[in-house]
């Protein structure tokens, strides 16, 4: 089976990281921030996947690791959504710029 070259995976992964980070900085919407974090998680997983695909010694460890990582990330995202829900119930808004009360 033919795969795309390793560089394609690596570049896509870094692009996902950069896009996610940019979105996290620029966007002020809490849901979009969560989506940005998720994009970054996917970028990281993609890098691990490409390393597994092109491993010198073929091994299932990488694949099982990816499955574990994806499930752990799903938990994190669920807790994040719960927290955003909590913030929304209080402020009636998803604007993260409102969260500015703690300043030294």
């Amino acid at each position, binding site marked *: 089976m033919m795969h795309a070259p390793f560089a394609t995976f690596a570049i896509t992964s870094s692009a996902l990281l950069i896009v996610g980070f940019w979105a996290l900085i620029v966007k002020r919407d809490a849901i979009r921030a969560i989506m940005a974090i998720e994009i*970054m998680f996917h970028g990281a997983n993609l890098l691990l996947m490409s390393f*597994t695909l092109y491993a*010198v010694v073929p091994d299932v460890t990488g694949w099982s690791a990816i499955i574990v990582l994806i499930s752990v990330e799903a938990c994190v995202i669920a807790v994040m959504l719960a927290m955003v829900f909590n913030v929304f119930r209080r402020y009636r808004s998803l604007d993260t710029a409102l969260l500015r009360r703690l300043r030294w």
Partner: protein
Amino acid sequence: MVIYPELVPLLPLLLSGIALPLTAILRIDEKLKRNIACIVACIAHAIAMILLFLPTGLVWVTQKEVIVRSFIKGSILSTLYVDSISTFFMLIFFLVGLIVSIYSWRGLEPGIRAELYYALICLLTTGMTVLCMVGDFISFFAAWELLSISIYALVCSKRDDVLAMEAAFKYMMLSCIAAILMIYGLSILYGYTGHFDFIGLQRALSASIPYTVHLALALLIITFCFKAAIVPFHTWAPDVYQASIDPITALLSGATTKAGVYGIMRLLSISRLSPELILSLGVLSVATMTIGNLSAILQRDIKRLLAYSSISHMGFVIMGFATLNPLGLAAALFHSLNHAIMKPLAFLSLGNMRLIAGDTTEEKLRGIGRRMPVTTMCLMVSLLSLMGIPGLNGFVSKFMLILAAFHAGLVWLAIAGIVNSAIAVAYYIRVMQIVLRGTSGAAKAEVPMSLLLPVIALAVMCLVLGIIPAPVISWALSASELALMGKP
């Protein structure tokens, strides 16, 4: 079925973490429910601690050998790796968990669901214990996220508090970015070595390693520094410390920052970090101490001041890693333990004062010393120990750290440590002055015994470790020699 004796200390914590939320469906009195939850959590932590120190316990077993086991035959995932570094950190986590559980019995504010609160504390300790026990980085990541999720939820345990919500949200976002960097680091490490498990990595990283692997190690160190609140990654710490309730602040500064320290220690033990990385740890240490101290001087809120002082103390811990000799690593471990005793002591006594004075600002706390003699005494012990007054535990480990920096030839690091100790005295003295001087005029109002007991216990520990530090130091030295084994 095989029973692994190493996992037994974990069982009471895990079981109570799972079982306590189920008590929410019981139709019993809230007060009774709270008492049950508290007793269960305290007993779970106490059992875990006792099992650790039994004659057949992990502490003594790991002095002789490193325990390595694989749960799935032939697989290198889900392995167990316990050595004396792990048991040292497990002691810290159980100790802080136990003290905070006892304190929370009466110290918990009304409106917090006690059974969920205690379940989260148990899960947090479980996560940190698993973190110390696992032998591969994938299980390590899972344990890392377990402890992170528990602490996010604990930070905003006061449900209607806007500040807590905001702090938890910020902490979560930043923490997730750190976790992503960790996955990137792990991927690169796996791509170049083909291993996730510590033993395989140790073998692969003992030879000369390519420059990309140093990048991976740097990414992992950034993640750990984030958890330990080292300076460029410390921005979450003061907000979260200030906004969360007092027992959780004690837990955060005492235990979860140590999870990051454990990560750095483990990384040192399995790989040979490049001189540049070690040097950057030294630079981060100086930056952390200086910025932590200088920001602490500016604070008007005593809790926030102590939060910044906590950051500066984490700088001292990192200083031990930068020296990279057995004395320095032992000092870093010992200072972690001392910090896990001194800082919860300070935050919990401050919590007691908050119960009487209403808040922790300078104005409210003025002259509170006359009203609460016992609590003030304990706070003084903690502040003197943080300052590094001889006879208390903070002095011993700080002295060891500075000595180790001189031994390693890092004179600038040692001098930075000494100067920062001197700067720190300025604001600790100010806190003492606020608490002791002036009269509030009101009658004596000491808090109940159940709130005083954990504070007094910690103060006694400060004194005991200051006078007889030798057993702990020899334990830390054996752990640090293990970490540096086979390295130049």
